[in-house]
């Protein structure tokens, strides 16, 4: 685990420095390119953590976002050095955000009232623990309890039972477990996601239509 943890920390540090440069620099084009660097760093982290579907998707999405943003930023007539001073005092905003993040992280890391809300240490998620399978019995019928132990989260249960048909599920039959989860076990989420993409695309069309636009004759003051 050690080499992977060190490479991961190096990549996360690189992404943090890139995001700070992207937020603070005055030149809009360099800030957009730094966001591209943060996106590619995310894709490398996904590849390192054993998620190849996510890495491919993140790379291609990052390329499309970069093309659109660079196109928007470049065709502005000498707006690329626009000032970006803050509206609120920087110290107050940073202090309040820091306190909020510390409180949230502290609560998650040390656990609230129960053990279920705790952020498990990196590398040992909840599915490495096992619970007695007797908890899966229907209410009031303890004689129907299955035997043995089961992993303590649905990810582990899907890895164990989700592929082939047995007495607890029909089985998805897909060798790619992630696609089996997306299109068989949690297919409603995919339906919702298709709806959200559809609505966002229609919203973008509706904003950029030609109907209802008037041609402005020009702005006198260029600030």
């Amino acid at each position, binding site marked *: *685990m050690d080499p992977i*943890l060190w490479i*991961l920390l190096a990549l*996360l540090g690189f992404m*943090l420095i890139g995001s700070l440069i*992207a*937020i603070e620099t005055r030149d*809009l084009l360099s800030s*957009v390119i730094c966001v591209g660097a*943060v*996106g590619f760093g*995310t894709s490398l*982290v996904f590849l*390192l953590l*054993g*998620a*190849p*579907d*996510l890495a491919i*998707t993140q790379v291609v*999405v990052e390329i499309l*976002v970069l093309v659109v*943003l660079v196109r*928007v930023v470049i065709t*502005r007539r000498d707006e690329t050095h*626009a*000032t*970006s001073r*803050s*509206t*609120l005092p920087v110290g107050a*905003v*940073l202090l309040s*955000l*820091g306190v909020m*993040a510390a409180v949230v*992280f502290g609560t998650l890391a040390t656990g609230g009232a129960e053990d279920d809300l705790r*952020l498990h240490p*990196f*590398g*040992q*998620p909840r599915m*490495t623990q096992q619970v007695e399978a007797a908890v899966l019995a229907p209410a009031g019928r303890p004689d129907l309890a299955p035997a043995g132990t089961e992993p303590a989260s649905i990810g582990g249960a*899907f*890895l164990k039972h989700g*592929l*082939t048909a047995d007495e607890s599920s029909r089985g998805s039959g897909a*060798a*790619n*477990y992630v696609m089996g989860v*997306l299109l068989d076990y*949690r297919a409603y*989420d995919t339906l919702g996601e298709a709806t*959200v*993409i559809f609505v*966002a695309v229609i*919203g*973008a069309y509706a904003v950029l239509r030609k109907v209802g*636009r008037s041609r*402005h004759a020009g702005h006198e003051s260029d600030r």
Partner: protein
Amino acid sequence: MTLAMLPFMLAFLLLVAGLYAIVAKRNLIKVIVGLLILDYAANLLLVLMGYRTPPAGEAPVAPILTGGLAQADDLAASAVDPIPQALILTSIVIGLSVTALVVALAIRLYEKYGTFDTDLMRNLKG
């Protein structure tokens, strides 16, 4: 053990950086940059929570069956959690669509007011 919590802390710092850019910046492009960083940080945090350490000396095991049905039990004991990966896959594409919508709004605002500066937009009232 603090070393095991350090990746989560860095992902949280990235989230705070994105949130700071959304709240406290005047230029619309900087706000869009903050939205993008917030999106990446949230995806990263969820995938980090689903990682399982491989057995000693091997690479992390992706949840894909490459060796036929005989390998399924072996995979179930050592693979990374597939459920966060499935949900974050949809979230990445949704992030792209929402970014496209916000950039469309920014283009439209530029057309109407001639600037990307939100303070000037409040004053101009075109």
